[in-house]
């Protein structure tokens, strides 16, 4: 629908520019509510203390978990918190709004704008205070790395960053595919809870799960790619094959998501909001 409108001239960086504009507006909006920063800080602290307590509890009964030491699991926890922060800052708020828009019919307003609807629907919302978790996770990660023997060279750092970006894009695809389901199933408001619940599995290396679950957590819900693989990059376990697989899978998933989005969009009939 949106594509049949007058197309703006081709401009490869337009999505990035759009995202930047929305980011500015969103940030200015959120900056009005500064107490939320303190609230978020407090909530992140509770989550962090709980996570550390669970880790300490597990390692009070064992010295290693499936070949991962406590420091290595701390690294996984760091990546998990960083990725969780990224998801709640950018991906999740956009998808929840999209879901709501489809249900209410207000998605019309997105389609009437002369830009790609998928891009618009993916960059409209931003929750800057949730980014506290990105910082908290980075600190946890730094502490974990200082406890680990073996140094991190630029190669490892680069592989880590690349794996993290791939993981984030796969999580985005996963969310968008599910949200696109709202074109058929109208009420999907439990989706965030569903994802949040499954996402918690990423706090542990995916190798501890039994086979069927491990495969689901890799290809069905790409949490292994989003958390375990980047963490492997930092603990000297990442093979080039795994990274290549992640890149290939991310690319395939992005293409499928694009196709599925258009397919779902053709089902949308609007509701004259």
């Amino acid at each position, binding site marked *: 629908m949106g594509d049949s409108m007058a197309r703006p001239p081709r401009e490869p960086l337009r999505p990035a520019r759009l995202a930047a504009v929305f980011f500015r507006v969103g940030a200015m909006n959120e900056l009005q509510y500064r107490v939320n920063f303190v609230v978020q800080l407090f*909530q992140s602290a509770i989550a962090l203390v709980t996570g550390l307590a669970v880790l300490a*509890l597990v390692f009070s009964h*064992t010295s290693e978990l*499936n070949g991962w030491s406590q420091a290595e699991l701390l690294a996984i926890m760091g990546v998990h918190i960083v990725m969780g922060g990224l998801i709640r800052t950018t991906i999740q708020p956009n998808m929840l709004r999209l879901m709501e828009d489809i249900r209410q019919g207000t998605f019309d307003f997105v389609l009437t704008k002369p830009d790609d609807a998928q891009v618009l629907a993916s960059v409209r919302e931003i929750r800057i205070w949730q980014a506290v978790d990105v910082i908290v996770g980075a600190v946890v990660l730094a502490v974990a790395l200082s406890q680990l023997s073996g140094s991190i060279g630029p190669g490892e750092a680069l592989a880590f960053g690349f794996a993290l970006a791939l993981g984030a894009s796969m999580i985005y695809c996963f969310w968008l595919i599910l949200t696109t389901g709202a074109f058929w199933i109208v*009420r999907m*408001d439990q*989706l965030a*809870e*569903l994802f949040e*619940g499954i996402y918690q599995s990423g706090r542990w290396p995916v190798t501890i799960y039994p086979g069927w679950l491990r495969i689901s957590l890799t290809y069905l819900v790409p949490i292994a790619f989003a958390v375990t693989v980047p963490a492997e990059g930092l603990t000297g376990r990442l093979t080039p094959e795994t990274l290549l697989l992640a890149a290939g899978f991310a690319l395939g998933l992005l293409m499928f998501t694009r196709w599925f989005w258009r397919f779902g969009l053709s089902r949308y009939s609007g509701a004259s909001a």
Partner: protein
Amino acid sequence: MTAAGREQERREAVGRIALLGALVDLYLTEIRIAIAEQFQYRVANYFYMVGMIAEPVIYLVVWSTVAEQQGGSVGGFTPGQFAAYYIVWTLVRNMNIIFTPYGWEWRIRQGELSGMLLRPVHPIHWDLGYFAGWKFVAIVLWLPLALILAMLFRPELEPDLLDVAVFAIAIWGAYLIRSVNYWILGMVSFWTTRVGPLFELFLTAELLLSGRLVPLALMPDWAQSLANVLPFKWTFGFPIEALVGDLPADQLLGGLLMQLLWIVLGAIGVRVVWRFAVRRYSAVGN
């Protein structure tokens, strides 16, 4: 006593019975409404449930891994016993779903409470009735999931008749304890709207000290003693262990009495806090 006095007394007794009958009627109606309503949202309910089942499956896998690494058991739990614990956990968790304390803000802000105040019964009865009805839907939807989980994780479960009977009562005890506790907590919204951190603190304490995260036997001693004086373990650990563990009869029945104690304390708490809270409520229009 005069005849008139006796007549007066008789009328009051009849009135009380009629009130009780009306209350039972209210509960039955609320339960019927909840069942009809929630069955319509099967998909949403299933999403919610599957998301919820992720949590115990994660704990189960982690602790089974620890048990295997420790030569087959940790803290007296084998992987099969962990499986039983966490599968029963999923039912107890479903029983533990109550009106969320976060919902109070909405209730107050939207003025939904105004309508509730006009009715001749205390609003808590509506929540208790409605969520009790929802439980029946949850249990029906839970059964196939439990079957799948049991096939996947092979629980070791040998309850006797008393265990099952106590469990059947204890899950409703857990429901009531959690309902009244979270009602009290939610009513904080009458004083402040920044309730998120407080709720989260409460939820975290519950997570760690209830047996939700891990069987309490695996917690350090000081945490176990702390859990003994708090209501949390009576909403998670106790019902699960009644069915899964081999608690002696006196502990099973004593546990039910402890549940009763916490229900009574919570009900008194609701009465007292509600009296002050509702005075702070004001609404416009609606």
